[in-house]
């Protein structure tokens, strides 16, 4: 942790941005954008999370190894989600349509 002291003004600014983004995400949810609803919701959430990490959690002023830890966590989470989903989303387009696994509900 560096000795960098973030001024309260920055904190308040971040807080206000987070509020605006929260309003935006709620507003966006009421508009039908098809598959893009989830994309926008996650994009806004990620911007909010990034702001919190960078300023509230001082990651912006932290040593490189902190950045590495953050990147590792996000990367591993992405690996888990992406590789698991790689199984499920490619099942429908299997090269062998007849061995395709269908969900029986």
């Amino acid at each position: 942790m560096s000795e960098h002291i973030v001024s309260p003004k920055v904190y308040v600014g971040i807080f206000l941005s987070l509020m605006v983004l929260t309003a935006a995400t709620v507003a966006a949810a009421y508009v039908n954008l098809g598959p893009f609803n989830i994309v926008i919701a996650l994009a806004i959430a990620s911007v909010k999370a990034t702001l919190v990490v960078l300023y509230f959690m001082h990651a912006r002023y932290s040593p490189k190894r902190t950045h590495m830890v953050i990147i590792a966590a996000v990367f591993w989470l992405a690996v888990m989600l992406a590789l698991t989903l790689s199984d499920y989303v490619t099942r429908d387009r299997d090269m062998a349509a007849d061995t395709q696994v269908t969900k029986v509900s």
Partner: protein
Amino acid sequence: MHRTGELYGQFETLEQQKESAALGMWVFLSTEVLFFGGLFMTYTLNRHYYPVAFGVGSNTLDLKLGGLNTVILILSSLTMAMSVWASSVGKRKQTTAFLAATLALGSAFLGVKVIEYKQKFDHHLVPGYHFQIDYRVQHPAPNDDPKEIEAEKEELSKAFAEDPDLNAHAQLYFSLYFGMTGLHALHMIVGAGMLVWLIRQSMLGRFTPTYNTPVEMIGLYWHFVDIVWIYLFPLLYLIDRHR
């Protein structure tokens, strides 16, 4: 290892001690990311399978309460950040005040959560043998708005037409809702406990500009819990509001 003043015996310098604590906390949070990650994975796959049931389940949540909680939690993150600032510039009273505000906001969040859980309990939306997605429209309370019930009934009958096994799939949504918000709330409770300890330490004047590591570390934890909520809010409350 014995402690001399602010320095624990295994460390050579305060700087080293602080660095270690910060790295340790970040590493711990990376573990937490993957811990919640298992739930997020389960959520993603099931939402992929059962979009209708997840939409229906999501729409039964009270967006006003969820939104209020989002505001409360982000505000608590602000007060937490302010207490870190106050402690690092040596403003003891303000440190304590901001910590207390954080604790109060955290408790408010949990209070709202209790109200929400209670609602779900009343509407038989807690997973288990009594789970019934259309319980509320079957047994409306006297003070329920009949128009609202009518609208919900219509939505449910449409959903049942699309997904005959809606009840089971909506139950999955609520299992995840309670699983994720429950685990999040558990983290809040742990955080609140640590805040109580911090407030006490702060009142005793333990924190100085050279030594405010506990405030910073618990701050990191608190912000992390905030981030989890930042994702949970759209994923749980805002799936299908445009319908």
